[in-house]
């Protein structure tokens, strides 16, 4: 292959794509939580952990907007895997789609996690925060990292994808609010216990905002470079409308608004204004 062609291929690879993907499988894995697999090889091959896909959840003009879904995993043969909770009319429509349906998707979008090699890292997932962290766990293991995966949920039934995580070879550390599995209490409390003894070179988190704030606080206290994946209501997904902003703080303490869709959804935990 000539150099010219190589450069062309690389340029093509960064392109955001809008395509119709076939549903390979859709199954309910919890009370209102679904695992969805789409056939989208051209997106799957370039997607990075932490990136998302903007999914049209209607065949009509209502619901109107796409729904941003973080990429959960990359399956065999170009499969894109999503794990999502039915929260409204859009995700309810998505849950009704079955194998063979075609879904309009736009992606991969956003800035993903900063990857490392051969390090000890901590992943801290609260509830559905598991979604992007399973993808980075898989990538991190491939890159020779030692992965401590802290995973908290309300109860045992809500610890989705435990078997998948265990099979991947992460060191899985569970926490539940009711004590039905693992540590009783918030996952950040469990992580804090480990922080006292283990030195993590990087940490990544996704989950409820209060939990992320606590995660960021702990990461700062133990001086660990840390990233969080944020969620916000979104329209274009391309950085044009400025609808999905979150509040950040620059190094001098000035607050400003940054797009979650293009500036994130992954941010340096120390840059996020947790009060705002």
């Amino acid at each position, binding site marked *: 292959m000539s150099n010219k062609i190589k450069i062309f291929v690389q340029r093509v690879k960064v*392109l*955001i794509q*809008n395509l119709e993907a076939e549903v390979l499988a859709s199954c309910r894995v919890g009370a209102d939580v679904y695992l969805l697999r789409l056939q989208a090889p051209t997106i799957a091959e370039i997607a990075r952990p932490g990136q998302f896909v903007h999914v*049209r959840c209607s065949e009509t*003009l*209502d*619901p*109107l*907007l*796409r729904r941003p879904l973080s990429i959960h995993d990359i399956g065999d043969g170009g499969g894109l895997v999503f794990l999502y909770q039915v929260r409204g009319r859009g995700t309810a429509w998505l849950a009704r789609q079955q194998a063979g349906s075609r879904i*309009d998707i*736009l992606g991969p979008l956003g800035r993903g996690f900063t990857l490392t090699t051969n390090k000890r890292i901590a992943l801290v997932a609260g509830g559905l925060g598991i979604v992007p962290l399973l993808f980075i766990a898989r990538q991190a293991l491939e890159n020779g990292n030692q992965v401590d995966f802290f995973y908290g949920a309300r109860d045992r039934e809500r610890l989705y994808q435990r078997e998948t995580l265990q099979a991947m070879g992460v060191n899985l550390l569970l926490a539940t609010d009711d004590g039905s599995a693992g540590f009783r209490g918030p996952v950040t409390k469990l992580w804090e216990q480990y922080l006292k003894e283990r030195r993590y070179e990087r940490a990544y988190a996704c989950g409820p905002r209060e939990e992320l704030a606590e995660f960021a606080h702990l990461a700062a206290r133990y001086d660990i470079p840390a990233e969080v994946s944020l969620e*916000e*209501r*979104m*329209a*274009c997904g*391309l*950085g*044009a*409308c*400025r*609808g*999905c*902003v*979150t*509040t950040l703080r620059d190094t001098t303490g000035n607050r*400003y*608004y940054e797009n979650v869709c293009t500036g994130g959804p992954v941010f340096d935990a120390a840059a996020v204004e947790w009060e*705002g």
Partner: protein
Amino acid sequence: MEQAGNRPAVNLKGQAGGVPFNPHHQETAPGVNLAVEIAGLRLANPVLPASGTFGFGAEYAPFVELNRLGAIVVKTITLHPTPGNPPPRLTETYSGLLNSIGLQNPGLEVFIREKLPYLRQFTPPLIVNIAGRTIGEYAELAARLSEAAGVDALEVNISCPNVREGGIVFGTVPAMAARVTAAVKGNTPLPVIVKLTPNVTDITVVARAVVEAGADALSLINTLQGMAIDIDTRRPALASVVGGLSGPAVKPVALYNVWRVARTVKVPLIGMGGIMTARDAIEFLLAGATAVAVGTASLVNPGALMAIIAGLEDYLLDQGLADIRDLIGALEI
């Protein structure tokens, strides 16, 4: 400064027709004229992005061939950088989008330095949308953008519902709207398009006032003021409490306003509000708009502008029409 009138004409009226429609073609189909004229600007077709939904163009480059647009319309520019409103800024309503962005933009200097060089490379006319907190700011924006190479027209935003100073205040009081228009006209040789709000008792009164003050064209409608409440938290869905409604939900209101204004003033109109398809666009042309702007549709389908342009050609060919201008104001009552 390069004037749009010097650009290659795309009026192919009179050439041999009968060429089958090809959705992948890059050029206007032979035998079909899509070109229109707005305030001295020649547009290769009547389809524009609506300000605020298209960023500064580059965001949509993977999906929209910017050279195929009737014109490029960028997000509102203010004299100084504007941080915008606190999040959450968006919520979805039935077939609608409620937003309160608050005109977040990097300000005039950054626009000229960092955005304009990219935008200058495209052939369609560049329309820069401006908003001021005072009449003086509108005047200064107009003067400075007129000196910047590559700007072909100004769209004066006197209708943003989401900012505390300026914005809609200038658009709801006819005398104020006229003063802003006159101040901009007095400080630029460029065509001036004034963007109107529907949040008034009678939009034709404001339309007449700004046309008398010198507006070369009008664009309408900006978003409709609205709100949504989360009953679980008993809090407003938007941090700013109220926002502006757009999308298919507002289309009948937009069409009605365009139709009324078209019967009131002589200047060309850019119609907008909930246009999702070429058929929607044709409704606005029939109601009297010379061109249309597409906003929320691009947020849903990034290639919407291209599909609408192709759809207009398709419609003309299907109907055996040679010139899109024959549709403007052709509503039969």
